[in-house]
């Protein structure tokens, strides 16, 4: 940080531009750096933190929140927010369990498709209400958060579905590994790659940033704003549904409270990952790394023997610091960026 400061203050203009460009282009580098510091610092205290089992656990633990963060990023980039993902995840996870209870022999692919379809249906409802009725998504998804959780709870009642009702092939999905990398991690990495490519290189992906930067201008420029926003909600819902299936595979049992409070955890990960809460900037990779960072910090606090009672407070403090830090950096960079832009023009 101090190095950047010094460079920005004293260095000639061209150099400042260069640095600014690097920091802005690779915002994710900062998160990776923080991640390395956390992992490094913890492993000095306890070398087993760097063991392959521990790293695998870190990856699978963060995978589901990271997956949800992908969908949430798409939505937040367009200056909307999806608060219903936790409820969608819960509904889909319970539905998956119920499918296995009633039809024990059903194939894995079908189950995954069913989970994603449930999520997609919920996402379509969110998107349709938000775009057709032009109402704030915060309100709509807060409402569907209640509705979907309520449907889930009245369906599940006090019932709990345990791993004994689930086939081994399904549980394998949560714990299995390929070349030492857990399936959950692989799935999330694959989704991040696909989403990153889509957001960077496809016109519809770029449209999302335009919409988030200035919805009115995007509309006037001929971007089908409603269609794009609708699609992001549908995708976010489908991802949450898919994540519900993985959630059940990972945790092995499900009741009506699955995924409660995930919405805040995911939004936190997205914000830590450098996605602007009012849209227009940020990347899927950053959001996924944000989820990984938050999860790693939580685990490392346990490893270095911080009382588990302190974990939540420290996480909250770090979250506030991360948001403030991000803001300070962008404030420092704003003048440099402005000159860069003007010289280009």
């Amino acid at each position, binding site marked *: 940080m101090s190095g950047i400061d010094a460079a920005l203050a004293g260095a000639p203009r061209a150099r400042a531009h260069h640095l600014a460009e690097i920091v802005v282009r690779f915002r994710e580098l900062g998160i990776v750096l923080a991640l390395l510091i956390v992992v490094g610092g913890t492993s000095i205290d306890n070398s087993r933190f760097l063991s392959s089992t521990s790293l695998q656990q870190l990856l699978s633990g963060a995978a589901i929140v990271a997956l949800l963060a992908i969908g949430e990023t798409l939505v937040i980039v367009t200056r909307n927010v999806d608060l219903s993902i936790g409820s969608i995840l819960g509904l889909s996870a319970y539905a998956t369990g119920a499918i296995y209870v009633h039809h024990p022999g059903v194939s894995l692919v079908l189950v995954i498709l069913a989970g994603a379809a449930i999520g997609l249906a919920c996402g379509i409802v969110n998107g349709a209400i938000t775009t057709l*009725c032009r109402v704030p998504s915060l309100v709509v998804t807060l409402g569907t958060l209640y509705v979907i959780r309520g449907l889930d709870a009245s369906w599940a009642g006090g019932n709990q579905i345990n791993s004994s009702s689930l086939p081994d092939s399904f549980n394998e999905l949560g714990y299995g590994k390929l070349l030492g990398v857990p399936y959950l991690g692989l799935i999330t990495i694959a989704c991040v790659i696909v989403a990153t490519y889509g957001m960077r290189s496809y016109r519809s992906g770029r449209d999302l940033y335009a919409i988030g930067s200035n919805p009115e201008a995007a509309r006037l420029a001929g971007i089908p704003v409603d269609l794009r926003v609708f699609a992001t909600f549908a995708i976010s819902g489908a991802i949450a549904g898919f994540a519900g299936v993985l959630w059940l595979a990972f945790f092995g049992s499900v009741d009506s409270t699955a995924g409660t409070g995930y919405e805040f955890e995911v939004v936190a990960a997205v914000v830590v990952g450098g996605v602007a809460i009012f849209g227009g900037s940020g990347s899927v990779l950053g959001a996924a790394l944000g989820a990984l960072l938050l999860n790693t910090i939580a685990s490392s606090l346990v490893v270095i023997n911080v009382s588990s009672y302190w974990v939540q407070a420290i996480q909250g403090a770090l979250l506030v610091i991360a948001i403030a830090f991000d803001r300070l950096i962008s404030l420092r960079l704003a003048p440099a960026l402005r000159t860069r832009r003007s010289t280009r023009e």
Partner: protein
Amino acid sequence: MSSETARTAPAAPTLLQRLMRWESALVLLLIGTVVLGDRLSPAFLKSGNFFYVGLNIGEVAIIALPLALIVITGEIDLSVASMLGLSGTILADLTSRGVNVWIAMAITLAFGLLMGLFNGLLVTKVGLPSLAVTIGTLTLYRGIAQIVLPNSSLGGFPESLTNIGVVPIRGTQIPWSIAIYAVLVVGFAVTLHATPVGRAIFAIGSNQEAAYFSGIRVKRIKLGLFVLSGFFCALAGILFTLRFASARYDAGTGLELNAVLIVLLGGISIFGGRGTMLGLVLATCVIAALQSGLTLHLMSPQDQNVVIGGLLVASVILPNASSIYGRARTRIASAGARRASRRVTPSGGPS
């Protein structure tokens, strides 16, 4: 958005137009809920039930008051329930250490001011979006509560105080929290609708820049509102703790959503600049009556969530129903015109 909606010149509102507002709909909704509640259960309109209805909604209703003002300025405070929980644990911790309960309450309220100040400074001085900040402090405050009071509940309050959760004000059926709420509502309504500060709050929500350039101290007012929110959350936390005669670190988890629900159902725009205290109070009554009626009808809290969530979604759709209809008509009409023009000039494209 504005490019598509037809703009009509503002005419003097007729009586009908004046009656066509969200508050009227809420009144109808409230009447409907009460009638429904009476149908569902003979106990609904008993005066004893009124006491329990008030008791259940009291704390959230108090939290919703400052939250409404914050939402009108275009910000949001999601940390309210965590502030409530933390205040309760501090009160219990102090009294268990032998501090006089009244002094402990004063310290708790002061701590509430501090929590609100922290939120407010991050929003106004550092310039962070309140949505992000208060999601952070939601976790932070709840986490501190867990440090103060890990894993157990702590009681030991004098019975004269914990009675406020069981006994109404003498001679009436009014719970103490509702009495406090009633006084506060008057104060908030006067401040919002009849003072320069209230006008400033609306101005900030409508157009922050314009408000700033017309001499309104935007940041100071926002900071003040966040501090106010902290204070009243602490007050609600004290009431909540006394009602259950014990404090837990997870007390009131998720209440932030209920508070936001009441604010939004009250017709207060999430984008700021619009809303009335009347709407807020009516929405509070609707939610309270609905919860009570459905509970007496033996509907599970989960099923109630479906009803309440659906109501919230409906509450944002219905006020826009006419503009949605209008937009659909324009779209159909313009599609028809396009088709017609294509028929006239088969080559297509503008000449």
